[in-house]
């Protein structure tokens, strides 16, 4: 076997083989996940066109699919979203909202027969904010709130829940 840097190493051959191998692997992966066909019979299959794992994680809709004993099952995943990617997705979603809004406005203006349609302002800064502020708590945060409430109510040393009566409990006998 010629070394990696040797002069008569069949470079092109090896590279092509590698490329083919990679393509083959990818194809198998896509076939397994049902990404090749839009109307695949495989349960939970998704089309490649509008599929983004990152976006699904952001929307909290991500369902990892695994082929397990010939069945598709939902399992836990180690996929996570970086803060930077999340910010980017948030920003892009904002732009998408605004673009939609602009398109609608454009349509309205056209229907009203506004001659200045083409000069319609596309300045984003004058548009109303489309950002929806999420005031609701996430479930985990809510649970934390509830638990914190219990903790703060039970700060005193007398949080003991047991029942202390007159007698107590005496069991057994002293001899062995």
């Amino acid at each position, binding site marked *: 076997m010629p070394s990696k840097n040797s002069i008569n190493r069949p470079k092109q051959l090896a590279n092509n083989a590698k490329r083919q191998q990679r393509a083959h692997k990818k194809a198998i992966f896509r076939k397994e996940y049902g990404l090749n066909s839009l109307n695949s019979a495989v349960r939970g299959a998704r089309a490649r066109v509008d599929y983004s794992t990152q976006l699904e994680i952001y929307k909290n809709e991500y369902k990892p699919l695994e082929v397990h004993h010939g069945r598709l099952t939902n399992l836990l995943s180690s996929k996570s979203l970086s803060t930077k990617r999340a910010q980017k997705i948030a920003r892009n979603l904002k732009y998408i909202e605004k673009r939609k809004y602009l398109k609608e406005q454009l349509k309205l203006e056209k229907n009203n027969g506004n001659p200045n349609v083409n000069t319609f302002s596309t300045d984003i800064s004058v548009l109303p904010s489309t950002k929806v502020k999420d005031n609701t708590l996430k479930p985990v945060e809510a649970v*934390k709130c509830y*638990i914190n409430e219990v903790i703060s109510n039970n700060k005193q040393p007398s949080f003991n829940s047991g029942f202390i009566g007159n007698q*107590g*409990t005496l069991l*057994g006998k*002293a*001899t062995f």
Partner: protein
Amino acid sequence: MSIAISENDTNILLKTKNVLDEPVLDKYQLAGKITQTTLQYITSLINSCYHDSNKDENQLFSISQLCFLADLFMNQLLAKDFKGKTLEKGIAFPCSIDIDEIANGWSPELDDPLFIKEKNNDPDSENIPSGARSSIKNFLSIGDLIKITLGCQIDGYTSQITHTLCVYPTEINPESGLSQATGPLLGAKADAAAVAQIAKDVVVNLLASAASPEKLPENLKSVNPNGETKVTGHLLRKVVDHLIESYNCALVPGSKIRRIRRFLAGQNEGIVAEREFKGCVWYESNQENLLLAKSQQYQNDLNNNEGSNALALLQDSENAHEDKQKSAFIYDSAIATDDFVVYPGEVYLIDLKVVSLSDVQELGLVTVETLTEYSGSTSTGRNMTVRNSQFIRDYTQMKDLKLRTSRECLSKMDKQSVYPVKLTYLSDEYQKLIQSPIELNFQNINYIESQNVIVKDNLKSRMGMNEIIDNFLATSKPVQIVKYIPWDVIVNVANPDGVKSIDAVNPTLPGFEIPLPKLNISALKLKSLLKNSRTIPLPVAREACTVAITDSLTYKLTHAEPIYLQSKYELNPNSPLTQGIYQLVELSKDSRFGIKIRNVKPLSEKAVKSKVPDLSE
């Protein structure tokens, strides 16, 4: 991975062989008798050397010797019965002696103490908790709460017992001249031991009333979802939780009341997923639910028709969690729920581990930590290094092993059963000892030569066992200690990954891999919190017994008397649930119209010495 078995065979193994008819009941009873006799034997061994003021300090039996002697005694008793038959019989739960915070699994081999002493820090240093201290020293000391676990099986019909004992300071009774305890056990340990005993007895009565549920007191019936006249999982859980709370205690994760079947007695929990699991189990998530129920805000949100958005989301995520539980396993019936009814003809195991919260300063979560060969080498020095001594063969795995010792070890192990095995059992010398006559005079117990041979055999088997374990042909039973983590620490932990990680080593029942599903805390995250300096070990009391329910009579296969203790807590007589419990206990005392329970008695001394089995009752 599951083994494919034909439907016919499955029916025979799971259904036909589990019908509680006369021969099966006899086998269960005999297993119960042998288990109880062994408990009596080891208790008197402990009393003879730790509660006898005349005893020479140099003649104490160490913990590893006690385990060895108890196992040997049990094997000798088992060897007497069903001699010509081909049925399997043997030890189902090797004798383990767990001290204070150790919850299960401490059953050292004869050669383990040296290793453990060498690998651990000085046991007298301040950081080491009391249970670890005695365990490292390999001798019991005064004030130790010790849990003895034993069990045997005859033809797969298993009985188990766990009993909590205490080592008392002693004095001589002036009247009888015998030594007795100077006073009852007090404080947190007494609370835990008392409620464990009481809860066990009450649950036995509840299970027994499954044969005639119409006798259930009204106050208990009303606990069931629709006020049904049945003994359900909900009722069992509610009653146990009520008792535990009355004594200001908490149940340790892994406590359970479950149905057992032939060869399925909970010895492989977390390793083999069992189809049609039936029983109540307690894990960390139950404590999470109990804590949430205490929150006023949570109750308000629940009662409020509209409810908060977060609450709706929470319920959604709960449903999603349940779906995930189900989808992860092919057999849903392997996941334990409370929606079951106890019927006569079933055998149940009650196994309750209780810790008292009297000594803790803040609200917290009771959880367990698994000790390993490296756990003692942390910088905090608060844990100890252990060496697992119980191994379970995983029959789904096959492999040709390289070392001859490994192959020998494996073939010997295959001759044992699906129950845990200690290396000692594989020794030829030990097998010879089993055939020798039983020695009941403790002064004469002297197996020093045999013990030396067994220690040498163990050394060889251990090498083989290493390869077996490395190839996953067997797994080892862990040693676990109970720890208390303040909720404060858990709530404030940085947890960006959520529940996406699973601890594959943690032996929990299927469906309970995530300890705190509502807080999104995974087992690995919880494991990392165990290192926190505010986490403390708690002494645990444990009671277990096996109950066989038939239409006419309920057999309490394993029975043990409570130890001498005094707790400041008692049951609140004004609570309806307590009244129901009192009525139930009254019913069990009424021999004519009440619930009929028979305590299976241990073998008589004559029967132990004689060569024929004792089946008289």
